[in-house]
């Protein structure tokens, strides 16, 4: 299958600091790719660069085969949707109206059936009329994921979609994204939880100080050596009946 997202030798400099460099990455329809790395490793910048939000100082990003800079605003929105790390919401809109923001070209009342279906797919149909600022972090996260998937974009990019959620909600959010991938979408997510990444991603990309350290299936990629060099951890992924589990301690 052709790549929905293709990044070739990408570099970004922010405030004089080289945040990512030499990053090459392809994401195809049907796969969930996790971006892993320590804090400050360049995960968010990689996702923003993939969307054309961070200006490249080198390399090229193609979305749906077209250089991202040449796409119109509408063209880019038709190809990719983004859930940023910042979950602040300005106004206390009811959940279904927040989800309707994923379909800005049709009026909210006409988009309502789609928004309810999207809320249903994240198990949040009962939240439809609640104000988003009156919700818990987990409820808000599910509504924002519904906004992401209602777009129907072939590439879904989410920056730490599982951050701050309880374990069940983390699995639920990842399951929703996996379902979209099974329906053909390409999914790119940044994650901190290596166990979650090992269980839910088809591939992981590991960043260290802005450089790509590894790219491959989780179990084969997250080796003890890589855990030591990328995360300063002494440990390993242990196979279990329910998938791999990280067992690790700080490397001294």
């Amino acid at each position, binding site marked *: 299958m052709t790549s929905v997202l293709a990044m070739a030798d990408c570099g970004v400099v922010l405030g004089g600091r080289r945040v990512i460099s030499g990053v090459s990455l392809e994401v195809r329809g049907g796969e969930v790719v996790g971006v892993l790395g320590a804090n400050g490793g360049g995960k968010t910048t990689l996702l923003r660069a993939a969307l054309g939000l961070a200006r490249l100082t080198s390399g090229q990003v193609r979305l749906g085969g077209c250089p991202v800079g040449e796409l119109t*605003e509408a063209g880019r929105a038709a190809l990719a949707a*983004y859930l940023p790390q910042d979950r602040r*919401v*300005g*106004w206390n*809109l009811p959940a279904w109206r927040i989800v309707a*923001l994923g379909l*800005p070209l049709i009026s909210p009342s006409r988009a309502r059936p789609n928004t309810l279906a999207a809320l249903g797919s994240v198990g949040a149909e009962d939240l439809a009329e609640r104000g988003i600022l009156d919700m818990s972090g987990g409820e808000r996260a599910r509504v*924002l994921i519904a906004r992401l998937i209602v777009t129907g974009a072939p590439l879904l990019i989410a920056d730490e979609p599982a951050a701050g959620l309880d374990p069940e909600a983390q699995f639920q959010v990842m399951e929703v994204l996996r379902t979209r991938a099974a329906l053909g979408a390409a999914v790119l997510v940044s994650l901190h939880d290596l166990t979650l990444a090992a269980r839910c991603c088809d591939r992981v990309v590991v960043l260290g100080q802005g450089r790509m350290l590894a790219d491959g299936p989780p179990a084969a990629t997250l080796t003890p050596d890589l855990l030591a060099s990328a995360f300063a951890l002494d440990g390993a992924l242990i196979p279990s009946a329910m998938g791999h589990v990280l067992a690790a301690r700080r490397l001294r």
Partner: protein
Amino acid sequence: MRLIVLLCLALGAALWLGLMLGETSLTVSQLVEAFTRPDSAPWRILWSIRAPRAVTAAVVGGALGLSGAVMQGLLRNPLADPGVLGVSATAALGASVTIALGLATAAGAVEGAALAGAILAGLVLMVLTARLSDPQSLILFGVALSALAGAATALVFNLSPSPVATSEVLSWLLGSVANRDWSDLAPAAAPVALGAALCAWSANGLRMLTLGEETAALSGLPMGRLRAAGVAGAALLTGAAVALAGVVGFVGLAAPHLVRRWVSDDPARLLAPSALSGAALLVLADVCARVVPTAEELKLGVVTALFGAPLFALVSWRAARSWRG
């Protein structure tokens, strides 16, 4: 839709009060005369004095309410008002300079200068919105612009040769729609209509900004143009309002909050109700200014601040719960 109808009725009632109440109280027979005999004294009181005054108050209040709603949406800040980015202050500066230079006698000079000040500020802000995407930097710049224009207005006071001019500037700064006639209203029609159209066009963009600049940038909407349209529209409306009535505070801040809960906080659906509630509020404030028996007629800006501040505190207290998060 029901809200719009209710607000139209409220505005209609306020305008009716604006026609009926004033310094001179009219008897029933005089009222009949006012509606049936053109050019009689009661007819002139109603249609040449009170009607243009009430309509001016409605236009100014509507412009300020709409402009306030756009500013709050654009900056994602419930405390934003038409003055927050310095547009009212630059409009006031334009008018003050014109009055202090003794050019106030030329027809339309003060109004033109106020509008020019607002348009100038609007152009600067449009360039800045294209460069700065986050609302915080825009607000900081607006505060600086506002302070600069305020200082320049103070300088006008300082250097003004005659105390007469100084008191004229001061009285103008307090805001009033007294003695307006239809000919004063006509030149404001174009900027108000254009400003309202730009604001209406930006509505979808304002709604999209609810989720922040980055999500909006990737929504597929032409956010750069929509944000510029919002700033330009709000600046034109504010400039036209200041040109018509001087500086009238609180309406632009309070009008959106009065109706916010009935549109479930949606920045796009807030626009028309804010304009209508702003219009009704200012017509009522002007009726108050007229009927409160004081030696010198109360200034409109004084009334809106005196009544508006406690009302606003009450509404904010009620709404406080929905702003957390």
